């Protein structure tokens, strides 16, 4: 009973219900949306978003933000694709992409933790820099005609039409989830975001934890980039443009608070699936893609506002109940008169 109650209180559950409701609603209008094959396509379509949302979750949990992951993803994808095209072994290309992500993440982390630049500013700045570097690196050209085998990775399915990358994402997410919730080391991220001074007081290395969060975020964007390359098959100078905002939106929809310390990567994953599915929903609803942004905006604001109000109400209710409980029923209390 208690467990069930707790489950329902968990933010990711309400995000999940939101996802479910969205799918069902669209299914009501257009039943072909609910075909298992299509649901799997929705999942396949979210493999990149899930990874970047999980990476972003690390940073947001520590109370910071990373507005540069779109460009990080683009840069890592460009590097990965270039090497693949030049027939480098896949492993090398993937490792180089990861290296790019790690370096980008380290630079962000350095700026935030050592130079004390507010993360939103630091990463807005590096977003411009990394994006510029993609142009420098690719000369603005498309990287295309990648080895068919590598592209084939994203088309390797298990369970019917489900891409194995999606399963890989889920496994990664689960591991990260356990790491963040169950291990002493992993709990640090939320602790730092919850109360930096308090974390410092009990010996949690705040700066190092934040640094690590940015590096992990970079690594996840790079991993996302590898999947992107495999899934899309070509990389342009604007690859990943705007993904940072989508990842932030995914995290928020998934119940991760931007002020840090609250939320789980399971939520981020659900948010990622929602964000990746919106453009698909519209096709099935026969609504013009013009309304893509409108719907995203309304959804984002609605979910967050409703959640925030509900949260506030329950806190306020609890407070009032507790206060009311203090007051004795009879006049005078235990005082003998």
């Amino acid at each position, binding site marked *: 009973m208690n467990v069930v109650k707790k489950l329902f209180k968990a933010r990711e559950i309400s995000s999940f219900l939101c996802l479910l409701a969205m799918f069902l609603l669209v299914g009501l209008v257009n039943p072909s949306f609910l075909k298992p094959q299509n649901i799997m396509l929705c999942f396949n379509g979210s493999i990149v978003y899930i990874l970047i949302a999980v990476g972003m979750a690390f940073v947001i949990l520590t109370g910071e933000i990373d507005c540069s992951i779109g460009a990080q993803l683009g840069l890592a994808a460009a590097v990965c694709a270039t090497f693949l095209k030049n027939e480098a072994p896949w492993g090398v290309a993937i490792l180089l992409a990861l290296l790019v992500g790690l370096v980008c993440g380290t630079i962000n982390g350095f700026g935030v933790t050592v130079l004390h630049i507010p993360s939103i500013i630091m990463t807005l700045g590096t977003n411009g820099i990394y994006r510029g570097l993609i142009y420098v690196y690719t000369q603005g050209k498309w990287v295309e005609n990648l080895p068919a085998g590598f592209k084939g990775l994203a088309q390797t399915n298990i369970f019917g039409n489900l891409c194995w990358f999606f399963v890989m994402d889920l496994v990664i997410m689960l591991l990260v989830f356990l790491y963040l919730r169950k291990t002493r080391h992993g709990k640090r991220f939320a602790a730092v975001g919850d109360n930096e001074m308090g974390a410092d007081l009990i010996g949690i290395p705040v700066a190092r934890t934040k640094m690590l969060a940015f590096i992990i975020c970079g690594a996840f964007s790079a991993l996302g980039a590898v999947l992107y390359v495999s899934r899309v098959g070509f990389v342009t100078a604007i690859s990943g443009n705007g993904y940072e905002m989508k990842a932030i939106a995914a995290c928020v929809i998934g119940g991760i608070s931007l002020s840090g310390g609250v939320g789980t990567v399971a939520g981020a994953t659900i948010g990622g699936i929602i964000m990746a599915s919106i453009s698909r929903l519209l096709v099935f609803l026969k609504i013009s893609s*013009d309304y893509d942004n409108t719907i995203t905006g309304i959804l984002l604001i609605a979910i967050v506002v409703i959640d925030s109000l509900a949260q506030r109400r329950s806190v306020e209710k609890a407070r009032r109940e507790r206060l009311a409980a203090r007051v004795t029923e009879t006049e005078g209390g235990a005082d003998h008169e």
Partner: protein
Amino acid sequence: GSKETSGGSDSSASAASGDEKLIVFVPKVTGNSFFESANDGAQEFAKKVGKFTINYDGSATAAVADQVTIINNAITQGADGIAVSSVDATGLDEVLKKAQDAGLSVVTWDSDVTADARQIMVSQGSPEILGEFLVQLSEDALKASGKDPAKDDIKYCWHYSQATVTDQNSWHDAAEKVIAEKYPNWENVAPDNYYSEQDAEKAISVGESVLTAHDDINLIICNDSTALPGQAQAAQNLGKTVKDVAITGFATPNAMKDYCTAGIVNNWGLWDTGLQGSIACYMAYYLADGNKVTIGDKIDIPEIGEVEIVNNSEITGNDSDNVDGSGVVFLPERAEFTADNMNDYDF
């Protein structure tokens, strides 16, 4: 003079000495294979001809305001000519007029502005021509999938970048007219069109959804160079081939070769963008060099051949657009790519 394209002072100095002209070559958006290959072609051509240098500079996000800034900079930087593919049908008019007043030659290519704001448009064809070309591509693709465009009931839809992009929408409109006249048996299942905003991943998502939501669709026309490979990838993901659905549109040969080989796409089209870029830059140089052109002139372009200046009304359909000192140059031809000829191209 210097051959550097990056040293502003060098270029202006060379402009003053008059031995080498500086042409600022503006794409609609940077990082798009269409425009990049136009630049490649133009740069190579400029090296061969050797009378002008090309400074390639564009907006990364296809923003009008960026293009205005770039043109303003071209003026103040002391460039001699501008060749621009406009993001907006009218948004560049003012600044291009200003450029002409400042003595720069103004050429548009690929995507036009108001006729009196520029001197020459180097066009791949009027919207009508390209609309018809798209219909022709569609016919061929349908035939390859075993349909008879003239008799069978055909369900089709459009998938391109955005509702706000000028040229793609004008081609769409023109093609719709042709279809309405010629093929009453075709049915557009999504008159609002599908857009993927030049986001490659979104192109796949939208592509997959289109194929699933309309599982009896026969034809998808993708007149955008990001949407076409995305749509093809989507078909591949769903295991659909040429036989199941006809997918065609505009994209560079390189972007589509794989899908053609895999039997997902039969044919698609484009024009020689490198050639278009070269002609645009040459025309800008030619005008900047003090030459005047009038309708009916034939100009001999080294390495390329002769082109003719025709009336603006050829592309706008409005006789009122025929103004002095302004005209259109058509590209010789558009190419349709298939498995047979795609390896002859590398862009």
